[in-house]
């Protein structure tokens, strides 16, 4: 297990570092832009600030998620669809350790990006009134402080869940349909159902946060527990398929 963690970190550390620098640079530009907007209250400056803010929020939520999911260590891409899969499948490490090790480093990668994002958002929250003024928006940033812990844990759990679903669907595809006629269409169908599933689950998650969080925080933790259980089941399925059915 340690050898997998060590190797996966070695492989991905450069990417993590470069991506983090890019994220940090964008967040910094946003903060500077907003600060300048606060100093010089012109409409043009506010527009530029809003643009940077949108870019940062989009990157933080979607960009970090997708980069870590598809380019990160946790993705099965390099062991199922590339020739490097030969190298990985012939190493004397069980699929359980291999896939878990990859997912842990993948999660670490996401947490690094997410921590940067949190740092940025913390700064924004801290300077809430100034930022709201810069964006000409009536936002009470302090309102969110209670939910932040649950939200962070929720996003991390959601990442684990989506990574598990993606890995499972790619392994199913490689195990059963890769060499079937119209396999690409089948893959598209699998991905469609996969994303429908993810969207449904995410929708349920967000609904609960929106409507029940303040009154019933326990239900959020229960939902996260369910997500973790689904992730574990999918992880077991992925390992078994990789071990018994995947032919390279």
């Amino acid at each position: 297990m340690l050898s997998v963690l060590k190797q996966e970190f070695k492989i991905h550390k450069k990417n993590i570092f470069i991506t983090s620098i890019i994220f940090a640079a964008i967040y910094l530009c946003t903060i500077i832009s907003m600060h300048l907007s606060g100093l010089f209250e012109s409409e043009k400056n506010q527009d530029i600030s809003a643009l940077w803010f949108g870019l940062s929020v989009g990157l933080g939520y979607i960009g970090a998620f997708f980069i870590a999911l598809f380019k990160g260590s946790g993705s099965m891409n390099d062991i199922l669809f590339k020739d490097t899969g030969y190298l990985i499948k012939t190493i004397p490490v069980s699929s359980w350790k291999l896939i878990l090790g990859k997912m842990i480093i993948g999660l670490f990668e996401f947490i690094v990006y997410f921590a940067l994002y949190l740092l940025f958002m913390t700064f924004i929250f801290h300077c809430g009134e100034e930022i709201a003024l810069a964006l000409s928006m009536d936002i009470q940033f302090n309102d969110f402080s209670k939910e932040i812990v649950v939200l962070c844990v929720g996003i991390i759990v959601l990442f684990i869940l989506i990574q598990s679903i993606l890995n499972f669907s790619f392994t199913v595809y490689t195990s059963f349909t890769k060499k079937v006629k119209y396999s690409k269409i089948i893959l598209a169908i699998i991905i469609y159902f996969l994303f429908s599933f993810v969207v449904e689950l995410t929708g349920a998650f967000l609904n609960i946060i929106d409507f029940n969080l303040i009154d019933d925080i326990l239900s959020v933790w229960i939902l996260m527990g369910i997500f973790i259980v689904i992730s574990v089941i999918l992880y077991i399925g992925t390992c078994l398929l990789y071990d018994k059915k995947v032919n390279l």
Partner: protein
Amino acid sequence: MEKILEITNLTKKYFSKKALKNVNLSLDKGRILGLMGPNGSGKTSLLKIIAGLQHSNSGEVLVCGKKIGTETKKLVSFLPDKNVLYPYMKAIDAINFFQNYYDDFDVNKAFELLDFMKLDKDEKVSSMSKGMIEKLNLSLTFSRNAKLFVLDEPLGGVDPVAREKIISTIIKTYNEDSSIIISTHLVNDVESIFDDVCFIDKGEIVLCGSAEQLRSEKNCSIDKLYIETFQNN
């Protein structure tokens, strides 16, 4: 004589097509086996099953008495017929990768082989030629103190000088505690190093035995025997 590899009634299907049909094969310790056959004859499927990359549909494969799995991966050193190293890797990264995962990997031997192959440890795989990558992969494969070396087309697509270097490496690193299986089309180049040969066609073994015995029985070289066996396909 200790058996390194024992294959019994091995069958491999790709949907309805049988790639291997009831293959029976055994390999003693210290022997070099030449596995030969035309394209699509089942050579690569057989080697991939031994290496643990593919699963058989029926039959049994034992490496040093163990069924194919994580334990046998510690005993088998596999050289695939394509580059499997990450393109961003330098030769030194590849060495570190092997050292991290294989307890039997000999780093000093790896550096010796890099020197012998005239490869730069700081050169990236993505900037290497096909021949250089082949030599790097072979160096890594033979830097392990494995029980069974499985080489799939080690001479394919490389120039005669690189080919000579690869054959020299095989001879240089061979020891009597291990066995080697070499799959190749270039019979003439390597037949002198084979102890045993096995001809495979349409998933079935059509001829198998000691190279020396076959040469004297048929009164011809293995290369000629190969052409005679497969010329009608």
